[in-house]
């Protein structure tokens, strides 16, 4: 699906990257643990998280992620948004819970990343 499809399904607000709505999203990973994001994500995926600090952006930078969807109505502070903008990230925000957001996206056809031992690395 595209970023535009994600926005339609989750009713998310676009905080950054309004010019990248046609970007393709091939998988999703949802976690508030950046340790696990760093350990399990090996592909370009959308990061769905309720964690809000600069290390969410830094983690995305290390993994070359292009899109973050903040859940539970979290709105990033200016410094976090600035860092994300510098990297050209798409940043979305929804007031829904992580569970509901993931459910909406799954029902619309989006799937999780390939986990280790499941055909991945």
């Amino acid at each position, binding site marked *: 699906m595209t970023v535009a499809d994600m926005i339609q399904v989750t009713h998310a607000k676009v905080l950054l990257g309004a010019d990248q709505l046609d970007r393709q999203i091939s998988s999703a990973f949802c976690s508030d643990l950046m*340790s696990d994001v*760093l*350990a399990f994500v090996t592909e370009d995926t959308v990061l769905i998280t309720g964690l809000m600090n600069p*290390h969410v952006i830094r983690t995305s930078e290390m*993994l070359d992620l292009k899109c973050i969807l903040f859940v539970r109505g979290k709105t990033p502070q200016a410094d976090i948004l600035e860092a994300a903008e510098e990297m050209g990230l798409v940043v979305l925000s929804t007031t829904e819970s992580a569970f509901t957001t993931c459910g909406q996206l799954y029902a619309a056809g989006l799937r999780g990343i390939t986990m280790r031992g499941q055909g991945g690395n």
Partner: protein
Amino acid sequence: MEGLIHEEYYVNKGDYVTAGSASADMKRKLRQLGVSALVLRRLAVASYEVELNLVIHSLGGKLIFDVDSTGVTLISTDKGPGIPDIEMAMREGYSTANDEARSLGFGAGMGLPNMKRNADEFSIESQPGVGTTITMRFLL
């Protein structure tokens, strides 16, 4: 073979705000050098993990990057306190991280195993009361 790049970054204990900036800087330098995206990501992840470990666990330390024509060597050395049980520390899910690290989304006990997984070569030596040295090699 003459080294292409030699960089050293000092990392302070408890410096959670800037943690990762050395890894981000090195990633940019290596990208400019034309390192492939796949190697770059593995190196950046392992580097970020070890940099976070210096901030969270060490009394302060240093990251040393050496780039040659066949690969990148990353050495992390610190001033202590050392790891009493390396075998335990290498287990996924085992962590001694404090609440501050955990509140930032770290300390899940994935760091050392994740470094080992991402590096082509990985070694760790530690002496309690002295310090820890981690050496990683990434082939280009």
